[in-house]
């Protein structure tokens, strides 16, 4: 994360998050933890007719884990569930270094995390929110 433009995006979302707050939503939250480093987020979504109406998270951890959650919510709020799943898939492939330029473009600011693909030690931090989202949407489908 030495590219300072990307660093700024991460810092900004880490220090001044838009979506880090309480949100009332019965039965649509999921907690994700990286036991090894203690990154911990609880993600909440308000769903309506298959659309993510609103979302928020709480938690603590390194800048990458927290910023990633905030950036993710920026991207998926207002989108349909299927679209969120598709974007999550792109994000996870980007972190593995397997997404195309065009796909990364679709991720908007989340593309700032592409450098993480060169930092194996930080992969878990970057993907925590996205895996938590996957789980939440999966449970929500049942």
């Amino acid at each position: 994360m030495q590219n300072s433009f990307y660093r700024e995006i991460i810092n900004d979302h880490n220090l001044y998050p838009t979506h880090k707050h309480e949100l009332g939503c019965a039965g649509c939250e999921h907690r994700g933890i990286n036991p090894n480093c203690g990154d911990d987020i609880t993600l909440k979504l308000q769903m309506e007719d298959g659309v993510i109406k609103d979302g928020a998270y709480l938690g603590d951890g390194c800048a990458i884990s927290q910023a990633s959650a905030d950036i993710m919510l920026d991207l998926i709020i207002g989108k349909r569930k299927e679209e969120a799943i598709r974007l999550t898939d792109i994000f996870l492939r980007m972190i593995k270094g397997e997404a195309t330029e065009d796909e990364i473009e679709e991720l908007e600011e989340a593309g700032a995390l592409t450098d993480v693909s060169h930092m194996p030690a930080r992969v878990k931090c970057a993907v925590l929110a996205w895996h938590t989202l996957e789980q939440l949407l999966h449970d929500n489908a049942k």
Partner: protein
Amino acid sequence: MDIKEIRRDFPLFQNYPNVAYLDNAATTQRPERVLLAEKRFYEEANANPLRGLYELSQKATDIYEDAREVVRAFIGARSTEEIVFTRNSTESLNLLAYSYGSLLQEGDEIAISVLEHHSNLIPWQQLAKKKRLKLQWIEIDENGRITEDAFRRALSEKTKLVSMTLISNVLGTRNDVKKFARIAHEVGAVFVCDGAQGVPHVPVDVNDLGVDFLAFSGHKMLGPMGIGVLYGRKELLDRMPPFLYGGEMIEYVGKEEATWAELPHKFEAGTVNGAGAAGLAAAIQYYENIGFEKIVKREEELGELTFRTLSEIPHVTILGAKDAASHHGIFSFMVEGVHPHDIAEILSADDVCVRAGHHCAQVLMKELKVNSTARVSIAFYNTEEEIIRLGESIRSLRRRMGYAE
């Protein structure tokens, strides 16, 4: 001590002249003579030690056994029978938990401290579970120290074994192992000392300390990875069953029955790490050529500087003792508002290597009420300039994370 000259002995520093390596508690670097000792073993004496009767095998055996003698002398053991080569501290401690553990009975108690590295914690925790022993915890005070009171509180007449680290890999505090071993003996318990962080940085004499067992790793003291030591008092090792079975550790084998080789071979099943032992001996000789007291003194001076440097930076908190001397070159610290992983990553961009995480001490992390810390750990070959660079990097951290100051 001419540090420039010393650093020339370490090929890695030649290859990375700009890297400030400050993660010595994880593993040290190795001087060339250690690498050469390993190479020489394979080039000039390679055969299976302790097996062949031909000259090469004899040579391999001699190098291996000479290394055992070097280790014996280094820690002041009475006999080479008391020196078992293992892979590392972790294996040494597992050997004990398995073998000495088999002599313990339901209801017996073992005591360990909350400071312990997972290597000196999980083996005992799992042993206690399996054999229905009671695991007692020795608590620390607010400075990370174990007081005599706290120690005594964890002991009872049922305590059969106490295991404790000499120096904490997180806080750097040194436990008064000499006193605690004496108290443990008073209640009839054996005392195991995890020397992984202690042996490389403070003089250790097993008889002076009065410990019954001592575990340490070659790779944390300039030696190769894959060679470690378990020291054990002969009377105890004699009573203990083997840990691993196989070649080399037997005396006689029949279809139904086998008898065990003499010490220390009883505990060294399978082909041994001859080159690793040669490398470890070379590492000890390297320490001795410089003079261990000089190394300790140098590390004290660098520790002093590191403590002062960190203490002067706003928003930085050092965990544990409030004086440099109690840290033995290990400093866990926090920077307000910056997660330890971010600290390590940004420092890495400045070519400063520090560790971040729970340091394999999750029980201690809970005790300290943190998830993780950043950790600097020094060795004698570090330079004042590296510590100054560390300070400058840490000073710039908050700004680089987007804070105004």
